[in-house]
């Protein structure tokens, strides 16, 4: 459906694909084959093209381009599977929807699998057969990655994280300085000079991670987490070296790079002799480090990996913190991050915490595992070539928010926050966007 643009188009990415050799295509196929295990192989033979997935996808709901239908996107991969890895499919290729991996098809992969999918998984839970479409698409993205065909913005995010230790390229000195002044702020806020944002505290119970964007643009969310830990009397620490919860390897499909990034957090937990890894409010960071990293690294961690919102729930239930919801009187709604909720299984926790923290909570419709993706996942925020699409499909989320009448949108994910901030501006929603911890911090009752 998509054809590689003609020679007049100055698109380095398209040019790179056009120049692929047979050997390059062989590398892609080899990686794809390595990434297909029995589960994906079964699912690639299951799609009956019923089309019921179409209206589950926020891309298709907002843009009726057939390329946005999840079955089409899956078909781009299933076609290659049939032609290359299925004996009957190979003989009847065109008849059963098989396709050879040509440069034109690779361009379609680039445009549709990277540019028309946020790996949100809403299609999968609405698929009649239950096909795990986002994970199969991720495998194909990984095959593209093996040939250096990840769209530049996304790949550079991964490269920066690998090279610098975090995806924003924050230098260690800057990180330490940020924590230092945030600690001073915390001491003033809680009126306690002993309040700490500890770094490299060996033997601390919990290692806490952040999304580097917090350090650069949203320091209040770090302060909020610090204040909650302070109120709970938690034994915790940051790592000076490995503090990045994000893992864009989940999005570019490169398991090796993803393993390196998550492995660093594992290393820090061990070095600092912590007993638990606590993940900042980051949907894909949660999916990566809670669910995928042990598979990427082929090992059992031997310690729990939890989201900070699970920890906050525990604090509330055990009375370690006390909250006064009347301190947050504005109407609040919740955006469910796909990787935390639909793919992560953290569904009721954030609701419990918010209902204890705010006095006027209202759900979006639909919500929980059926919630729509904001449009920022799947690496979309990093791929500028698809930015216009991202904002267009985000209209669905904007409509959901507007319908709630909320003044504050809370989401436990910094990727989602970035997208929601853009949607807020573009669709003139006039809402504040906050993390769960920020709401909790505002509702805290601190003992005198």
């Amino acid at each position: 459906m998509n054809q590689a643009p003609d020679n007049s188009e100055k698109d380095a990415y398209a040019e790179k694909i056009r120049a692929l050799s047979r050997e390059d295509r062989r590398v892609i196929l080899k990686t794809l084959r390595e990434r297909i295990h029995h589960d994906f192989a079964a699912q690639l033979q299951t799609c009956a093209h019923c089309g019921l997935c179409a209206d589950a996808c926020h891309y298709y709901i907002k843009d009726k381009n057939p390329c946005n239908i999840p079955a089409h996107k899956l078909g781009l991969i299933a076609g290659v599977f049939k032609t290359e890895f299925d004996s009957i499919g190979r003989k009847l290729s065109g008849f059963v929807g098989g396709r050879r991996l040509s440069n034109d098809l690779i361009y379609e992969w680039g445009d549709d699998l990277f540019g028309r999918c946020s790996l949100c998984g809403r299609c999968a839970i609405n698929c009649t057969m239950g096909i795990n479409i986002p994970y199969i698409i991720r495998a194909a993205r990984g095959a593209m990655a093996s040939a250096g065909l990840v769209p530049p913005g996304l790949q550079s995010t991964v490269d920066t994280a690998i090279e610098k230790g975090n995806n924003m390229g924050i230098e260690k000195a800057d990180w330490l300085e940020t924590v230092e002044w945030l600690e001073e702020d915390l001491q003033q806020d809680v009126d306690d000079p002993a309040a700490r944002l500890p770094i490299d505290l060996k033997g601390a119970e919990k290692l806490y991670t952040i999304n580097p964007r917090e350090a650069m643009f949203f320091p209040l969310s770090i302060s909020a987490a610090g204040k909650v830990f302070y109120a709970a009397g938690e034994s915790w620490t940051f790592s000076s070296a490995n503090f990045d919860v994000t893992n864009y390897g989940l999005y570019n499909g490169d398991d090796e790079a993803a393993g390196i990034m998550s492995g660093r957090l594992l290393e820090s937990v061990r070095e600092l002799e912590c007993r638990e890894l606590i993940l900042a409010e980051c949907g894909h960071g949660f999916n990566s480090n809670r669910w995928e990293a042990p598979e990427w690294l082929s090992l059992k961690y031997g310690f729990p990996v939890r989201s900070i919102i699970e920890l906050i729930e525990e604090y509330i239930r055990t009375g370690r913190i006390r909250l006064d919801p009347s301190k947050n009187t504005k109407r609040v709604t919740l955006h469910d991050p796909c990787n935390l909720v639909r793919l992560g299984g953290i569904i009721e926790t954030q609701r419990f915490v918010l209902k204890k923290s705010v006095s006027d909570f209202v759900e979006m419709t639909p919500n929980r595992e059926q919630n729509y993706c904001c449009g920022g996942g799947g690496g979309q925020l990093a791929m500028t070539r698809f930015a216009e699409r991202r904002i267009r499909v985000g209209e669905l989320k904007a409509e959901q928010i507007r319908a709630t009448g909320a003044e504050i949108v809370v989401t436990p994910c910094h990727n989602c926050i970035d997208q929601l901030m853009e949607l807020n501006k573009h669709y003139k929603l006039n809402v504040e966007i906050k993390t769960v911890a920020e709401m909790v911090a505002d509702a805290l009752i601190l003992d005198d």
Partner: protein
Amino acid sequence: MESILKILAAVSAGLTLSVLIGQIVRTLGFGRLPLHSPPHGSGSRGILYAFGQGMMPWEKESARKHLITYTAGFGYHFGIFSGLLYLALVVVSGFAPPYAAMFVIRVLMAAGLVFGIGLLIKRLGVSAMRSISCPDDYTANILVDLFLMLALLDSFGLPVRVPLLIESIFMILYIPVGKIRHCFFFFYSRILFGFFYGRRGVFPHPRTSERDVK
């Protein structure tokens, strides 16, 4: 002639079953990776959900939004299974089901035929459906619809036994070739679905009362 065709139908069924089992074995041959992350929920409960509650329209938005298509799909498959049961009775011979059972089989086959034709018309008429379809999709539907039509006519005693058996042989042999292989792979994929989401604690849903803040 009829006897030979019955034998051929039975042989083709055996052959198809062998090929399908071979395809499953080959699929398993793609290997599996051990899981290392600790579960948050129950894989087995997820599998039960996948084959029960998880198929219900009130659980699945896509089914709710496309209730007619979803119902047609269910009806089509019930009709097909009834048709295959009828074919088995024809091939085995000598066994005449009670009138009431035969009535139910006829109703299901007739409904299946109507739904099958309806789904074919939808595939042909809706551009989005055409865009995701390949020749196999149309062929599979037509072969099955024709089978249901002939089986239905045969059940009323019309002289279509030979065409029914010939068509059945073609249809049965076609199963592993294209999309109809999903008759096996559906169960495979649904188990995987249930296990994945069950293990992650996404499905089954907590009951409504459990969702409320205590």
